[in-house]
């Protein structure tokens, strides 16, 4: 692919995708067919625009996609020997960008779809990524991703798509996109932030703002998270000078506006915890009592948190370890043994708490157990290093 030309068009082009698609859906086109037609129009735009940039890109895409739709309908009509269907010309669209995004997010994050399908469909229909790019981002063949998207769209057929959807599902899907990591070609974290920004144009829901704040506050630390050799650097050893202060300031500002609504929820609380980490000039100055207070709020959101939100209970155990002492923190991890005992994170947290407690042999064992269960190469290597380091330091004592 022609990279410079691509870069030139990409931002503007992709921002148009939800607008054009929502316009087509609003005037009564089938979501499935409209999305296919727009995808073809996009590919054509990437081919044609570098040489012949359009006057009005949005109108260009709408026209080309409409032509495709009419062509598709004609050949279908010919196949079925039917009269060509006519459709009502729409009133000119005068809707806000955010409304378009919201309408499409509700389509793509339909609760009946599986999470993988929701993610794939969202990235294509709202994010404007090509099937190829999405396939690359998730390390699957293009044909597999194409099939996944078309199955998802098929299962949406015949469902009314003009009803308000489930915002909680939309937020979960966007967070899933954010945490899915990134390859060299597609930065899904940045993509998730972009989409969540658009979503916030259309809703006043504080949790949507909370999610955006959470993403920004975590994303700000990304430059410090890996060293030049690709090794994971834990939070307490990161070079805080590499953190993106502008992103932190924006995240804090958005979080404050969300919290002022006084309807707290999981994303706002997690963002508040992230903000406290981001605020500390050094690891020693981290406000752990305040973090613990937020974790108390977080686990209060669920009945039986150990069962229904074990990640929150585990995060809280770390905070307890720093506030009340490592032994207390370790005790907090015990009720999770049954639920998380085969996951690497539970062992890694215990390794950290044993280390905090000065018990290096126990820390080494816990890190080794964690390494044994890791499902990510960088994390596995990090945990093996932690285990070896704790073991070696333990012998010296």
């Amino acid at each position: 692919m022609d990279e410079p030309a691509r870069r030139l068009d990409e931002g503007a082009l992709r921002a148009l995708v939800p607008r054009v698609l929502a316009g087509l859906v609003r005037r009564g086109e089938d979501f499935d067919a409209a999305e296919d037609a727009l995808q073809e129009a996009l590919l054509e735009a990437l081919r044609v625009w570098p040489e012949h940039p359009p006057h009005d890109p949005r109108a260009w895409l709408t026209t080309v996609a409409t032509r495709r739709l009419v062509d598709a309908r004609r050949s279908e009509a010919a196949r079925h020997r039917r009269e060509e269907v006519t459709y009502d010309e729409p009133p000119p669209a005068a809707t806000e960008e955010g409304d378009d995004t919201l309408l499409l997010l509700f389509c793509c994050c339909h609760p009946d779809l599986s999470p993988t399908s929701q993610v794939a469909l969202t990235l294509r229909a709202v994010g404007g990524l090509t099937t190829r790019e999405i396939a690359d981002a998730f390390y699957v063949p293009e044909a597999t991703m194409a099939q996944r998207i078309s199955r998802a769209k098929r299962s949406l057929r015949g469902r009314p798509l003009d009803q308000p959807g489930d915002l909680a599902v939309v937020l979960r899907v966007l967070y899933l996109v954010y945490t899915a990591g990134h390859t060299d070609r597609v930065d899904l974290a940045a993509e998730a932030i972009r989409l969540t920004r658009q979503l916030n144009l259309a809703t006043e829901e504080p949790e949507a703002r909370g999610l955006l704040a959470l993403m920004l506050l975590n994303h700000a630390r990304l430059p410090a998270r890996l060293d030049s050799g690709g090794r994971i650097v834990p939070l307490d050893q990161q070079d805080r000078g590499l953190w993106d202060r502008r992103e932190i300031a924006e995240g804090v500002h958005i979080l404050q506006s969300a919290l002022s609504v006084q309807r707290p929820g999981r994303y706002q609380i997690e963002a508040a915890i992230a903000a406290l980490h981001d605020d500390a000039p050094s690891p020693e100055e981290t406000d752990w009592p305040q973090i613990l207070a937020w974790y108390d709020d977080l686990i209060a959101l669920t009945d039986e948190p150990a069962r229904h939100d074990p990640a929150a209970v585990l995060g809280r155990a770390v905070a307890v370890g720093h506030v009340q002492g490592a032994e207390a923190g370790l005790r907090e991890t015990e009720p999770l043994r049954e639920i998380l005992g085969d996951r690497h994170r539970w062992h890694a947290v215990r390794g950290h708490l044993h280390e905090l407690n000065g018990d290096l042999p126990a820390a080494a064992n816990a890190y080794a157990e964690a390494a044994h269960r890791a499902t990510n190469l960088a994390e596995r290597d990090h945990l093996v290093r932690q285990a070896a380091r704790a073991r070696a330091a333990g012998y010296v004592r």
Partner: protein
Amino acid sequence: MPQFLLLKYYRGGPERHHPFPPMDQWDPDDVEAHLAFLRHVTEMLKDNGEYVEHKGLAPSRTWVRYGGPDAAPVTTDGPLPETSDLVAGWWMIDVESQERAVELAAYVSSEPGPGKEPLYEWIDVRELMSEAPSGD
């Protein structure tokens, strides 16, 4: 989303559900049915959007190690060439969860054997480590 290998073996693994001869001694019809089923699994995975790749391995094996400075590589066909585990091939899949991988492996294991009865073959399910650091 997590990716797994569903590994099939020429030999090795836990004790078999029931003894069966090597495929070259089956009735030709049964062989056809078996191979058709394997093709069907591949098609089904593609159709589901769960397919990444599938590969077969030749049964001959050579163990190789460094021979030392200025020495030729050392090779052997193994300590117990007749009984050691030997991978025959795999499907690589990309699925929603570990549970889904297990469900698919069990389906593969229902493949027709001699007399077109299910083979109840053991399938080895292995998760691939992801390479991309996660964004959290």
